[in-house]
């Protein structure tokens, strides 16, 4: 059994909550007491059907306003996979939430209302998916029951979307006609769409290959914590604790510690208290090196024959997440995995229109939900990879120095 993390996106009322409710319901992940609670709340509905969307409503403010405001995480599993859903609201003002949810996802389900087809929000969600480098896209064309399960309607939307996907460089796109409300093509293939040759949504989610998304080629190990028991029997023990963000490490590998550039050799790898010959992403391990080098939290141990970039100036695509605007010249802390450095945003080169992908040169500032291309200077050299090459070593956050709030998400170019 493995793990798939996905995010759902769609405009308000496209049926996102209903779809998630349906997946949870049909995979029997909803328990009686939770059902009773939503049955009670569904009473004011006329048709007597339970309102599956209620399952995903979280906070009181959200229930009162009838919309989702924040990312919620939901869980279900089938015999072959555990699923983690990041349920992010779709309104324009919530680009920030979608970026957050997408950052940890392997796959995105983009909902399209069959009656309206590809709309501005579909485009925006797809652009965010491409910027965040989501490897798999499923376009779920919903409310097919309201267009008489018409193959033509479906085909036209597929053609529209495929054109856009090509221009955005989205690679793996799967299309599926569904009715979240009726449950058509969700868990089982529906008789209502005999012309549809693909599989039901749940089968697609169960079968999509996510293993290959973990990069095993470029070994990156950010040190989180140094373990030094300093007891009598473990007097000289010095282990570097961390998670392999990518790649494979073997005992005997020649390694380089960045940013210092000091070299050494791996003498031992500990996994769960036992010595192993090799370890791979995303395992959490302890590494031991041959030489008594000065390594601390924030350093990255890489294999000497495959090194990331080390620089003090970063070109980034930046999603601004704070209500206070960003202007060039402002200072922030930049956190990239376990590295935290002072930084200054030197220049805003252009702003990306998330609806059209057009670039507007030299913006004065970036406001909440803007995506801008910027140059950031950091106080000392940091090790990184281009986000497009290695998601796990190319994403960083900006932290406000006084409020300590996370204000920006950077994808290093």
């Amino acid at each position, binding site marked *: 059994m493995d793990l798939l993390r996905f995010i759902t996106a769609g405009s308000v009322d496209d049926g996102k909550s209903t779809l998630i409710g349906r997946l949870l319901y049909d995979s029997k992940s909803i328990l009686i007491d939770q059902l009773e609670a939503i049955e009670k709340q569904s009473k004011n509905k006329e048709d007597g059907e339970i309102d599956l969307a209620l399952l995903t409503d979280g906070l009181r*403010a959200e229930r009162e306003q009838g919309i989702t405001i924040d990312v919620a995480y939901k869980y279900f599993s089938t015999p072959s996979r*555990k699923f983690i859903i990041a349920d992010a609201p779709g309104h324009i003002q919530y680009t920030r939430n979608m970026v957050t949810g997408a950052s940890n996802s392997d796959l995105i389900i983009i909902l399209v209302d069959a009656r309206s087809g590809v709309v501005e929000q579909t485009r925006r969600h797809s652009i965010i998916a491409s910027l965040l480098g989501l490897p798999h896209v499923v376009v779920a064309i919903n409310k097919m029951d309201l267009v008489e399960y018409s193959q033509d309607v479906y085909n036209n939307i597929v053609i529209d979307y495929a054109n856009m996907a090509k221009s955005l460089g989205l690679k793996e796109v799967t299309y599926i006609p569904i009715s979240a409300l009726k449950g058509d093509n969700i868990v089982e293939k529906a008789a209502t769409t005999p012309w549809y040759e693909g599989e039901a949504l749940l089968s697609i989610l169960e079968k999509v290959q996510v293993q290959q998304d973990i990069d*095993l080629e470029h070994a990156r190990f950010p040190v989180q914590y140094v373990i030094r*028991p300093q007891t009598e029997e473990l007097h000289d023990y010095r282990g570097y604790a961390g998670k392999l963000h990518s790649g494979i490490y073997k005992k005997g590998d020649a390694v380089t510690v960045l940013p210092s550039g000091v070299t050494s050799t791996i003498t031992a790898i500990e996994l769960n*208290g036992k010595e192993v010959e090799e370890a791979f992403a995303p395992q959490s391990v302890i590494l031991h090196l041959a030489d008594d080098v000065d390594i601390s939290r924030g350093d990255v141990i890489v294999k000497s024959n495959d090194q990331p970039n080390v620089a003090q100036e970063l070109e980034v695509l930046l999603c601004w997440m704070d209500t206070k605007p960003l202007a060039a010249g402002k200072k922030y802390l930049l956190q990239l995995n376990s590295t935290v450095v002072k930084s200054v945003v030197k220049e805003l080169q252009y702003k990306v229109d998330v609806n059209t992908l057009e670039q507007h040169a030299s913006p004065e500032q970036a406001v909440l939900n803007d995506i801008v291309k910027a140059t950031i200077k950091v106080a000392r050299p940091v090790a990184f990879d281009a986000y497009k090459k290695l998601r796990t070593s190319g994403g960083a956050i900006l932290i406000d120095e006084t409020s300590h709030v996370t204000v920006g998400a950077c994808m290093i170019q």
Partner: protein
Amino acid sequence: MSQYRLDYLDQLESESIHIMREVAGQFERPALLFSGGKDSITLVHLALKAFRPGKFPFPLVHIDTGHNFPEALAFRDMLAEQIGEKLIVRKVADTIKAKGLTEPKGKFASRNALQTFTLLDTIEEFEFDACIGGARRDEEKARAKERIFSVRDEFGQWDPKRQRPELWNIYNGKISKGENVRVFPISNWTELDIWNYIRREKIALPSIYFSHEREVLEYEGQLVATSEFIQLEPTDSVVTKTVRYRTVGDMTCTAAVESVATNIDDIIREITATKTSERGETRIDDKVSEAAMEDRKKNGYF
């Protein structure tokens, strides 16, 4: 390349270890809140994996309501001793005395709400800047929206509107003086994941998780253990049943389920077959209102 494939439990485990080590790396005075229940026992197990052969970079802290199951307390002491880590216990009864708080009244008088006072006092006493807890997002709707690093103000309050976005595997633990962070390393685990992990790792649990005979009060469809902490009336139906616990909270607000499961395999089988959620079946305190948990969190609760 199939030899480089991780099982879902390995992935969850690695994520949790990573989070624990972020706490160790980012904070000066963290603590691990330990209740003696299966989730916090799992946290201890993960901490052993994260930090051995070193010592834990934090003490275990138990907020003792005085209404705990004796089996859980005994287990707590035994475990702390066995792993040789520091255990700090602070008692709600002492806070009640010191602060002149009012003891809750009623049939199932629960000190659940009062334990927040003791927790906040303990955080202040030791100047804890991060408290690791065993909450899971599948437990409850408000929890489903909470971050893994959840920043609280000096009153311990959770403000859902002020949550920091949490991206990739990057956890922002920067705080101002007076603030602290609640950290939930097993956020992404479900109840079943925990049980499967306990089985796989052969983690020992207090005996009350397994089927045993117990005198219980049948109350509105729930089975509550009789104890000095609940008031019986002559009309109450008290019976002896074969039960086990799915969660371990206070004796006053945790209900037992009828079960003959004597080992983990049986428990997993029963959970897979049951149709009621863990909190719904066994937590009397969440039933009060639709937003009970949300309100308690906003007031500094876990």
